């Protein structure tokens, strides 16, 4: 290991050896034991880290209230949020009931409209219409079992 490599490790991971990469830790320790410049560098970094820890940030006592009490504008909503917001409004019980009901009816209406225009391969036999009186007789649910023909 060279001093330059060791310096890079110190720069990246700091003075605390526990933060150094595991694969290089032993090599760093042995280099440190034999190189006075490396020890000086490590001491300097310890000093920098320690002083950096003493640099405090002031507290902002009124900031939380200021943020929580500010008037919030209308949120930018995604399309999904817009739809869900319309479908299940936060207030108004009436809307909370009829809007989901309307949404539930949409597939039904869509199905009726679609079925009206397309046969989807289901053919209607013309012959069936010629015996419509038979059909009506069957539908009348009359019991013919004891009737003699």
């Amino acid at each position, binding site marked *: 290991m060279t001093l330059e490599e060791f*310096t*890079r490790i*110190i*720069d*990246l991971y*700091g003075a605390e050896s526990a933060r150094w990469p595991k694969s290089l830790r032993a090599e760093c320790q042995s280099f440190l034991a034999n190189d006075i410049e490396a020890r000086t*560098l490590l001491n*300097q*970094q310890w*000093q*920098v880290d320690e*002083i*950096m820890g*003493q*640099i*405090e*940030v*002031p*507290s*902002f*006592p009124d*900031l*939380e209230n*200021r*943020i*929580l009490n*500010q008037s*919030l*504008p*209308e*949120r*930018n*909503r*995604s399309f999904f*949020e817009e739809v869900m917001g319309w479908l299940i409004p*936060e207030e108004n019980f009436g809307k909370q009931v009829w809007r989901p009901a309307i949404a539930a009816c949409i597939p039904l209406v869509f199905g009726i409209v679609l079925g009206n225009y397309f046969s989807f391969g289901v053919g209607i036999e013309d012959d069936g219409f010629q015996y419509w009186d038979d059909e009506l007789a069957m539908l009348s649910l009359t019991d013919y079992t004891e009737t003699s023909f």
Partner: protein
Amino acid sequence: MGDRTAYQTLVKQHLKSISHYAYRLLGNQKDTEDITQEVFLRLWTNAQKWESKKSKLTTWLHRIAHNLCIDYLRKHGRMQTQDSFDDEADDSTSKEKESIDVKNDEVKLLREAISALPENQRSALSLCHYQGFSNKEAAAIMNISVKALESAIARAKRSLREKLTTSS
């Protein structure tokens, strides 16, 4: 109502780290408060832009704070040092402000050295040293590569060491 409650919880949860990060970049209380307020306003208005699978909320918020601070610094020049903040706040000095005063010459020296660092180095140092982000997360916040971030941290630390060594 639920949204607002969630918003309030998030503000309480992230306020400290966002305000501290902004302060370390801007160096004065007034701008820090303004930027922090703006960060949370954006959280409210643009919440749908946050992609939970891509990044943690704290990373996303720090990224907003970072961009706002950098924009602010570019518009208004370099950060105000703690000294200028103290001068500015002389009229309303309180015990809390006194508690953050320079403890000794070395602390003062290092604080000045940090404020003199280029924005990207100061930001990298702050995110990794003070905010506890990994290099990868810090790079994502700053929108740079991990290599560029590591280089910025290395240069910053070298510069601070040199400053401290030459002074002593």
